[in-house]
């Protein structure tokens, strides 16, 4: 049992009192950072580089990793309570989490999110520990054609996210792709849809759109409905307890999404956001009560929460075994490690086993801390819903604006936020679903870049998408997921 010995060695490092303190400090700071919309783990970690410089590399990474997965853990809170995702990875959590909160089940939704995050995180640490070196091969086997096929498969979820009208869902998705195109095109260096504005050169940040279309649109909608003065329901939080049958219901989604999320995280560039969407849409399709997703289904909270935490842990695979950052956050971690004199990569397991196994062991401890820390906090934090409506709405507004301004210190982004808030309101009034737009916005860019890269490599030959087995398999899956529901429907009609 090599892994077990290594793990014991890792626990030896992670259980040093100073390191336990670092894990705790990391996950605590991360939880709070995650709860505040806009203030993401990237900027928090960049600020910590000077602090960690003087530390033992293992301690430094233990602290910073704690902030990262702590933020993903805590990000669900504002998604559920305020419809304002705290970090990009928890956007999908608001689809069912916020409806649950509106129905007086905020406590339950938060508890499910905490359990699912804990299990997703822990399951993926086991994977990370056992198969990380092997998985680095899986990660590199994904080239441009494979990424394109994966994004196509992801986009087929538009069908299941479209509620009533498929046409409206598709329109929303097309708008999402169009927004993703804004900015400098990496393939040619050409500006697209920037109208000469330098603020648009880097495109529109995903969180600006998400906060606008979800949180701000919700505020506008409530104002429009004259709900401003309505008194909140008494005991708006509800019980935290889950019944046995509810436990059974979410066990499957959590298990499946943990695995799916982990593998999504392993792929450089995919990460927690895509992982949570894939988990959500997979469960919606599998579930017998799939049509209640989006209206407060507990499985719709469990799946994305397990997936995003699993993906967060999974993203340590390319970082630690290949030395390649798969996301902005892991890029900052890589930079911090280099400054501390540790070069992540194929040699790291041999050269710095203390860092590798110490961090893995600390993640087990960190996830337990997060659960113990978050559960008792739920009734306190959820009290925010007891606030009078006008106060609550103003609070959401302020959170969104501070969050967006804090990302780039740009007034232009605030105007964009307002614009997307109005677009979101319009979409709600005319029955356009917001989820397909957000999904297409996340996937559109990678899909387009991968497709053009693949075609550039193949010299314009489309067969590259079919010649590669992984790409072919993913495309077949995509085709099936589009056609099976139609066939089912037809069979139902004829029966």
């Amino acid at each position, binding site marked *: 049992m090599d892994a077990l010995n290594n793990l014991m060695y890792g626990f030896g490092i992670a259980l040093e009192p100073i390191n336990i303190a670092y894990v705790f400090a990391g996950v605590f700071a991360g939880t709070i*950072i995650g709860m505040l919309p806009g*203030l993401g783990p*990237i*900027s*928090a*970690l*960049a*600020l910590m*580089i*000077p602090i960690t*410089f003087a530390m033992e590399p293992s301690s430094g990474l233990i602290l910073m990793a704690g902030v990262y997965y702590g933020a993903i853990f805590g990000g669900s809170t504002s998604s559920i309570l305020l419809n304002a995702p705290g970090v990009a990875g928890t956007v999908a959590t608001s689809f069912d989490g916020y409806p649950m909160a509106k129905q007086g089940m905020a406590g339950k939704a938060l508890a499910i999110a905490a359990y699912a995050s804990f299990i997703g995180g822990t399951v993926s640490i086991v994977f990370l520990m056992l198969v990380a070196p092997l998985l680095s091969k899986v*990660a*590199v*086997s*994904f*080239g*441009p054609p494979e990424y394109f096929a994966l994004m196509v498969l992801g986009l087929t979820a538009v069908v299941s996210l479209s509620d009533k009208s498929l046409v409206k869902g598709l329109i929303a998705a097309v708008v999402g792709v169009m927004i993703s195109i804004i900015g*400098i*095109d*990496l*393939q*040619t*260096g050409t*500006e697209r849809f920037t109208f000469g504005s*330098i*603020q648009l*050169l*880097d495109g529109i940040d995903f969180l600006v759109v998400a906060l606008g279309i979800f949180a701000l649109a919700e505020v506008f909608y409530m104002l429009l409905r004259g709900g401003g003065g309505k008194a909140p329901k008494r005991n708006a939080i509800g019980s935290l307890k889950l019944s046995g049958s509810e436990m059974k219901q979410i066990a499957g989604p959590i298990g499946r999404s943990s695995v799916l999320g982990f593998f999504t995280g392993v792929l*450089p*560039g995919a990460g927690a956001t895509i992982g949570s969407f894939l988990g959500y849409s997979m469960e919606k399709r599998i579930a017998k009560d799939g049509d209640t997703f989006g209206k407060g289904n507990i499985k719709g909270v469990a799946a994305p929460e397990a997936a995003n935490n699993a993906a967060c842990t999974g993203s340590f695979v*390319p970082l630690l075994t*290949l*030395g*390649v*950052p798969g996301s*902005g956050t892991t*890029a*900052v971690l*890589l*930079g911090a490690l*280099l*400054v*501390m*004199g540790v*070069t*992540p*990569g*194929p*040699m790291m397991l041999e050269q710095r086993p203390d860092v590798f196994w110490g961090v893995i062991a600390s993640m087990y401890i960190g996830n337990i801390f997060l659960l113990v820390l978050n559960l008792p906090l739920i009734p306190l934090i959820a009290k925010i819903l007891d606030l009078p409506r006008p106060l609550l709405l103003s609070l959401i507004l302020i959170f969104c604006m501070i969050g967006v301004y*804090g990302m*780039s*210190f*740009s007034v232009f982004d605030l105007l964009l936020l307002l614009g997307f808030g109005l677009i979101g309101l319009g979409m709600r009034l005319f029955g356009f679903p917001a989820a397909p737009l957000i999904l297409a916005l996340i996937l559109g860019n990678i899909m387009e*870049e991968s497709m053009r*890269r693949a075609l*550039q*490599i193949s*010299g314009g030959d489309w067969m590259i998408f079919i010649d590669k087995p992984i790409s072919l398999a993913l495309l077949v899956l995509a085709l099936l997921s589009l056609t099976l529901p139609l066939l089912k429907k037809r069979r139902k009609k004829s029966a």
Partner: protein
Amino acid sequence: MTTLSLKRLAVLALPMAALAMTTAAQADEWTPSRSIEFVAPANPGGGWDTLVRTVSRVLQEEQLAERNFAAINVPGGGGAVAWAQIARDSGNPHKLFATSPPIILVPLAGASRYDHTAFTPVARLITDYSIILVSADSDYETINDLFDALKENPRLSVGGGSAPGSMDHISVAGLASAAGLDASSVNYIPFSGGGDAMTNLMGGHVEAVITGAGESAGQLGEGSQLRALGVSAPERLSGSLADIPTYQEQGVDYTFDIWRGVMGTPDMPEEAVAYYENLFAEMLATDGWQQARDQLGWIDAYQDSEEFGAFLDEQKELFSSVLSDLGLLRQ
């Protein structure tokens, strides 16, 4: 979170800069009268950000500067957003930014109104070099093998970590033309970073990759899946990269610098420039700097303000000619 509010304070303090400047510039021996805003024109995690944070930290640890250097990220437009902001802050002696070839390349591509001539060169600090990588089981042993293959089959893909017309592309296109190929014949595939490009090379999705030597150092060595064919340095690098021959050793007369330095606001007072020049020269001599520099795979390449300014003009000419060969010149 505390630094976040600090940043906001710094933003609020901006209008005060003009006031502070007029009084400070009159003194003979100029010293900063408040914290220096040190801008990385990008998000945390990239090359500029690393330079800004490392320099700020070393200056503080070695207690060289009278005032604190506050690292500030102004992302957007590959630098253009920060440049536009700094260009409006003419004469402010308390604002510096990290710079590298994009200050020339981005404007040449037509994506920024401001180029290096709009700002005050302060000092060049370090340089990195380009490196050509292939998979460890590849048939190519030298850059000549690779270019012979490219001559026969121009469709062979060469990945890089940045958009067409930016650093990696210019570097490999210039190399190709020095090796007797048409610069525009290289099938350059842009990835979203050097790491992304190297992963694709490991997976066999591209034939070769060009990226920064420092960035690739962790990927090379015993048991590596990658092999380096050559570096763009005038002489061999040190440390783990010492075994890699230069292009010149292999008969291709071509070098390419990925330099990084510091620039200031337009028309920064001479006294302030002199102060910073000396400060950075002193910093480069400290143990703290040398340690950080080696860990990050950087090579010292100090130039003072005047030399750096002349160097930037030369670079612009070089880049313009490669870009026009590639048909990417927009200015």
